[in-house]
């Protein structure tokens, strides 16, 4: 038993069946500390996204186990999974905004999932976070009228607005310029220290690596290195490889 928000035990993952069956993850054992910013690195095809989707309750855990916020995902019911997803924030590589909703409405979708029916309060929260991300004058724009970087920032706002306990991001800063990327990572870091929000992020962006608490490298589905960056470490996470 552990109180870490995310942990994995002997996690394997296979794609396909029969002859096409291919193992993407081998015996992953990790424990990720509350409030930390962890970066996943590794060459293409090394299994970073696969690991992220398993932690994010988007893929079924079949071999070994993943524990997220106190729930074992192996064999978890759909209700438990849907409930957990609501406590997570996803930032996708593609922004995946809804084209017929304005920036504010897209962000509201991140709140509404909690059954939040106080429309005015919700709208305030959405505006506040859009403002923080420098989108104050784009609140009522449809995604079609926003630049790539602006769309990505709306997607970040949508993920963060409901104060998720865990944030999972797959190359979130690819579409952002230097300054915006910095703002976003700074926000994630400060959420970590003020609210204990745990972030796991796939990235190769050197600016972000600098700011990470921990860097885990994957190769061919295996963890090949796991480094703590103590300079960034207010309280040292436990390491278990």
């Amino acid at each position, binding site marked *: 038993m552990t109180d870490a928000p995310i942990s994995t035990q002997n996690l394997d993952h296979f794609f396909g069946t029969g002859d096409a069956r291919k193992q993407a993850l081998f015996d992953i054992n990790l424990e990720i500390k509350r409030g930390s910013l962890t970066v996943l690195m590794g060459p293409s095809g090394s299994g970073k*996204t696969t690991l992220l*989707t398993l932690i994010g309750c*988007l*893929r079924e855990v079949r071999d070994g186990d993943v524990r997220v916020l106190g729930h074992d995902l192996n064999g978890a019911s759909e209700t438990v999974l849907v409930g957990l*997803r609501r406590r997570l924030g996803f930032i996708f590589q593609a922004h*995946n905004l809804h084209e*017929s909703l304005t920036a504010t409405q897209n962000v509201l979708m991140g709140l*509404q*999932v909690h059954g939040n029916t106080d429309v005015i309060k919700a709208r305030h929260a959405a505006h506040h976070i859009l403002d923080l991300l420098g989108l104050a004058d784009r609140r009522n724009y449809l995604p079609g009228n926003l630049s790539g970087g602006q769309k990505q920032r709306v997607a970040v706002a949508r993920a963060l607005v409901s104060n998720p306990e865990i944030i999972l991001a797959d190359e979130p800063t690819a579409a952002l310029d230097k300054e915006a990327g910095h703002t976003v990572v700074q926000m994630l870091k400060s959420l970590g220290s003020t609210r204990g929000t745990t972030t796991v992020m796939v990235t190769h962006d050197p600016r972000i690596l600098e700011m990470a608490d921990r860097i885990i490298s994957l190769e061919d589905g295996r963890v090949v290195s796991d480094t703590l960056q103590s300079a960034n470490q207010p309280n040292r996470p436990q390491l278990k490889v």
Partner: protein
Amino acid sequence: MSRLLTYLFGRLPIGWLQLTHSRGRFFAAVAGVAFANLLVFMQLGIMGALNSSTVAPYAILNADIILSSEDGNTLTDGGHIPRARMFQALGVAGVTDATPLFIGNLPFTLEDGSSVSLLSFGMDIAKPDFTAPVIAPALERLSLENTALLDKGTRGMPTAVIDALTDGERFSFETGGDTLTAIGTMDIGGGFLADGMMMMSDQTFLRVFPARSSGAPNHILLRTGEGIAIDTVVKRLETTLPRGNLRIQSMTSSAANDLAYMSTERPTGIIFGFGVFMGILVGLVIVYQVLSTDVADHLREYATFKAMGYGQSFFLGIIFEEAIILAVFGFIPGFIVSVGLYAALVSVTGLPVEMETGRAILVFLGTLAACSISGAIATRRLVHADPADLF
């Protein structure tokens, strides 16, 4: 609009925003639903006119039981029955009065050369109780030889003639060597059976239909005494009267049987029923097409919502929201255009095509149901929204 819906639903009206985002598709869908509504309304309107003109003749009669020949399908077709049955029926306990009814189709040529056919009823004018109260008072005037009451709604009849008749003037016309004089009007309306109707005494009837004989009316109308169930008297008649080629029915079941025959056995009835079916099918297909394309176009967004923790009921909600919006927005223009076309039909054909409230409500509910069914089928595509594919 979207703020109002947000307030109403307690959530963003995604369905509304999504539908109105692609205007072209939205208008096409609304037009499709409106067209389907129009089809259904026109078919039902004409079917309704067919039905009401089928039972229209019953409105001028007033009896409890009707004896007819067995080969007739409705009041206005079929052969004759012996008048002797009338006297036999009068001998059955519970029957208080009886009268013969003659029916024939009288063609004649109008002044402008066009020909119309008038469904003519010949009745014993000494028994006005067997006609509807609105007609009964005028009946004794028909004792004059070769006089008749003419239907106000007769197709092709100049309005000047009808107006003059209403004002008490007379209008004579030739028919097969005889001169018939209309001395008043009745308000029944033309229909599918004939261009109009006419009421005359049995004496006059036998004169203008020389081939008919007083001993062989089309029907015999009976009245029953108070306090006796009509069905009981029908049963007694069935056991007493000779059964060769004789049908004994209460007036209500006779009308109901006529209706059933016209709407389910006659080609016209079947064609209109089929038209209603086609209209519903067109609507179903259009709405399904629109909704399932819409789902397919938004799979990525739906997958994202799934990843965010939205459950199946949320997506069903969006699709049903869209279905209901299409139903409402399609019904309104469909209804308005139908009312207009009904009016046009009435003025061109004189058929009693009316927009009944019950029919409008029924069609609206049907539209809602059809759109929801289409939506339900379209939701099957939702399973393809897999959030694991998003990264």
